[in-house]
């Protein structure tokens, strides 16, 4: 039976994203530190942080409801499922029929909804600020993401990531203006969704500027550990998404042997390293923007997505 090897490969991918996610975060931090000529923490530091947090006691606010305790696991579960659905080193895996872009957006949207609820649950003012800002950004980021999905779906004739990546891999697509616009829009959305520098600073606790950190301020111990792991997973997810749609080279196609899978894994690691390096360089080079400028930024992403869809619709020649 071919089911068992297929299950093994699928399981490998699910574990791989979980294991690689903190490494990617640590790598980005390390490169950022080196770029400003600091030594920086070791690349494996996020794993140690997670272990430390897991060993610590979880402190709950007195008026925290049951929701507050459940939400970290919900966020982690939805993000992990979404991250495991994105093709990383191979396409056409056993569960790839579920890897629908709209499903992934819905999973991430659910995670964000719960996180915003958690931010407001305890009733501190920071959590409320963080939640309201997060939701404000989401109202622009999600339509932009949907427009990008429409563009990809119009080109590939499917919203399934695996078949989109397969089509991109077949090199029958060529250079497309719509794809270029969608790539830029996707990068902008990814920066905003992962709370990276021009939108939010992942390393700060300055109350006037923080968004994501404000929502998770009340969490501690194992709850904080799973939330941080989910944040790393989300970063990995967006990088895999960009890699599998726009840089599909090296992905193992179904029916090829173990060698192709290994090549796919090496290519995936290389893509993540390049992506992480570019992200760190970009973050070092740019300043954080004002919170009230972020809607303009995300509006531009939405506009690009709209333009990409429009061009794809109207242009006759492809």
């Amino acid at each position: 039976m071919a089911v068992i090897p297929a299950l093994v490969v699928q399981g490998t991918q699910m574990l791989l994203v979980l294991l690689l996610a903190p490494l990617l975060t640590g790598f980005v931090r390390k490169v950022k530190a080196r770029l400003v000529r600091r030594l920086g923490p070791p690349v494996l530091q996020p794993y140690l942080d997670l272990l430390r947090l897991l060993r610590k006691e979880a402190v709950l606010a007195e008026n925290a409801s049951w929701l507050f305790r459940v939400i970290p696991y919900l966020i982690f579960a939805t993000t992990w499922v979404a991250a495991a659905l994105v093709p990383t080193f191979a396409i056409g895996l056993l569960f790839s029929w579920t890897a629908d872009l709209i499903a992934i957006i819905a999973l991430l949207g659910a995670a964000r909804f719960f996180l915003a609820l958690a931010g407001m649950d305890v009733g501190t003012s920071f959590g409320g600020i963080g939640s309201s800002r997060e939701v404000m950004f989401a109202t622009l980021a999600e339509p932009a993401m949907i427009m990008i999905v429409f563009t990809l779906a119009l080109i590939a004739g499917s919203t399934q990531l695996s078949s989109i990546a397969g089509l991109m891999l077949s090199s029958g697509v060529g250079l497309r203006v719509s794809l270029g616009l969608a790539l830029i829009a996707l990068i902008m959305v990814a920066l905003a969704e992962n709370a990276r520098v021009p939108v939010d600073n992942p390393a700060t606790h300055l109350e006037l500027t923080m968004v994501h950190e404000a929502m998770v301020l009340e969490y501690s111990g194992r709850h904080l550990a799973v939330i941080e792991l989910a944040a790393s997973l989300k970063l990995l997810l967006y990088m895999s998404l960009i890699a599998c749609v726009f840089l599909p080279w090296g992905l193992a196609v179904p029916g090829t042997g173990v060698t192709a899978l290994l090549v796919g894994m090496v290519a995936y690691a290389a893509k993540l390293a390049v992506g992480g390096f570019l992200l760190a360089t970009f973050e070092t080079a740019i300043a954080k923007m004002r919170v009230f400028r972020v809607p303009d930024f995300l509006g531009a992403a939405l506009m690009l997505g709209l333009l990409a869809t429009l061009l794809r619709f109207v242009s006759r020649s492809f």
Partner: protein
Amino acid sequence: MNGLAFDVAHLLAGGLVLVSFMMLYQDRLYALLNVFALQAVVLSLSVAWQAWAQDAPHLYITAAIALVLKAIAIPVALHRIIARLGIQRQIETVVGVGPTMMAGIALVALSMVVMLRVTPEADPLAREDLAFALSVLLLGLLMMVTRHNAVSQVVGFMSIENGLILAGTGAKGMPLVVEISVAFSVLVAFIVIGIFLFRIRERFDTVDVQALDRFRGGQQ
């Protein structure tokens, strides 16, 4: 024309529209000038690619003119003008960035629909190029009407001319003399506008064209 040449030409023309949107998004004068220079660089790349793809060497001259005049000379001159005017470098827009962007999208959609309807049997590359060129032109006009500041209106005017050059190169057989005369008439216009800028500044202590509204007749 083979696939790749078409794709690259299309991508560069699309890039020009994208840079036009970036210009609408800017809210600082110096950033606006840098984006304008970027647009000229993209334009000259696009023209040079057309020259290679169409095997039309005179287009290389057009590309060189675009690069030298519009990517270097005019932005540098505008930088100097802004420095000498000593004006506030933040741009006041008539409406916010969001509505402007939406209007821009609508204009691009309009130019796509119009161009692709009226040229059904033309060469596909020329059609797409014309559609993009019309978009750049309309976005330049949009920039002129949504800005109060005279300097950014000049930039909008110059970007209209970028759209014209794109249209001219997309259509095969545009004579060089037409392109050169367009380029130089724009340069003359730029000089005249530059003088006007200083006159406006001298007279009203600002380059905000709203100050001119007082002199409109028939409202008293």
